[in-house]
């Protein structure tokens, strides 16, 4: 109430409320899983339809899938390098596609129309749990990439130009997932909030340009997350001379 000293009888803005599901003694955010399943379902449906009958002369959805594949390959190849990008392409691609479809789903689908007992449906990436999960997966993968490619020599990276870098590089291991997760979370949540607040203040016309901006931000954030993940992995497998 502190943010909005007015009373709007026709709209409601809910932030930080969740639909809790109880799994044994674990509590999870139901609304995040519901939308993430829809996102995953949409992705899998697209992929299954597009790869059902693949030909040398692509037709229909196969074109889209090949475009995406090519885009992800270029992204992975430029950031990770020719040698190992193949191993990491599925991970980078999954991150990109999952975040992109989540963000756009959150921006395009009118989730608000579905009423939940508590909380509301929205992009899975607008929940800090999702973004931190993704960011920690990125951290694990770059460690794994470095260690599996170079063994213990991976730790040379920490003292690479000079040993003075050691503390900074150690701090980086913490700031990388932090910045990854908060950047994505903050952008998507902020976009949803701005749109919600605008809809709720001026329900006509005015939110539309902001929604377009939101679509743009969503796409950019997916690209940034995937690119940075690839860059971190590339940095870990890079050979210093």
């Amino acid at each position, binding site marked *: 109430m502190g943010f909005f000293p007015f009373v709007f009888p026709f709209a409601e803005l809910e*932030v*930080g409320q969740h639909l809790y599901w109880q799994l044994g003694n674990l509590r999870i955010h139901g609304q995040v899983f519901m939308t*993430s399943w829809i996102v*995953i379902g949409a992705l899998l449906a697209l992929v299954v339809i597009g790869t059902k009958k693949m030909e040398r002369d692509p037709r229909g959805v196969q074109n889209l899938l*090949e475009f995406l594949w090519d885009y992800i390959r270029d992204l992975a190849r430029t950031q990770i390098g020719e040698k190992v990008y193949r191993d990491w392409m599925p991970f980078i691609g999954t991150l990109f596609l999952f975040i992109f479809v989540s963000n756009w789903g959150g921006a395009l689908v009118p989730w608000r129309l579905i009423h939940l007992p508590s909380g509301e449906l929205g992009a899975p990436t607008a929940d800090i749990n999702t973004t931190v999960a993704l960011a920690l997966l990125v951290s694990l993968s770059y460690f794994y990439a470095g260690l599996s490619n170079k063994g213990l020599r991976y730790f040379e990276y920490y003292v690479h130009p000079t040993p003075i870098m050691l503390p900074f590089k150690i701090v980086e291991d913490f700031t990388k997932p932090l910045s990854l997760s908060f950047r994505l979370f903050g952008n998507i949540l902020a976009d949803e909030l701005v749109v919600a607040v605008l809809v709720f203040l001026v329900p006509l016309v005015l939110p539309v340009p902001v929604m377009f901006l939101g679509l743009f931000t969503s796409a950019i954030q997916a690209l940034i997350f995937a690119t940075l993940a690839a860059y971190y992995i590339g940095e870990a497998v890079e050979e210093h001379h």
Partner: protein
Amino acid sequence: MTTLLLFGATEGGLFDFDATLPLMAVQVVLLTFILNALFFKPVGRVVEEREAYVTTSRADAKQKLAQVEKLEKELRDQLKEARNSAQKVIEEAEKDSDQLYREALALATAEANASREHARREIDSQRDAALNQLKADSDKLGDLIVERLLAAK
């Protein structure tokens, strides 16, 4: 009713970490494997097959083009050669026919000259013979006339 629950809420809040985090991570890892099997591998195979196909067809086409160019050059050389030899044959034939013409002309002229000479000689000899005969006849006649005149006297 506006409800903004931000930090520090006991129930919920923006930074409410719970089992959603690990479960979401597991979900994304599973999605990675599923997408790898259903999307990245098959599409990659198709794209790379096509790339290989395009590369080999390009190489093939290039080779064929080179072959065609070589053949074309050969044919052009042959054509040039043929044209040259034809030219030579024509020149030779012209020369030959010229010579034949000249020879024939010379022969005919010589023959004509010879027969003319021959004819003239014959004419000459016959004329001489005729003149001689005439002379002899006139001599005889003269003698006869003289004899008759002498006898009449």
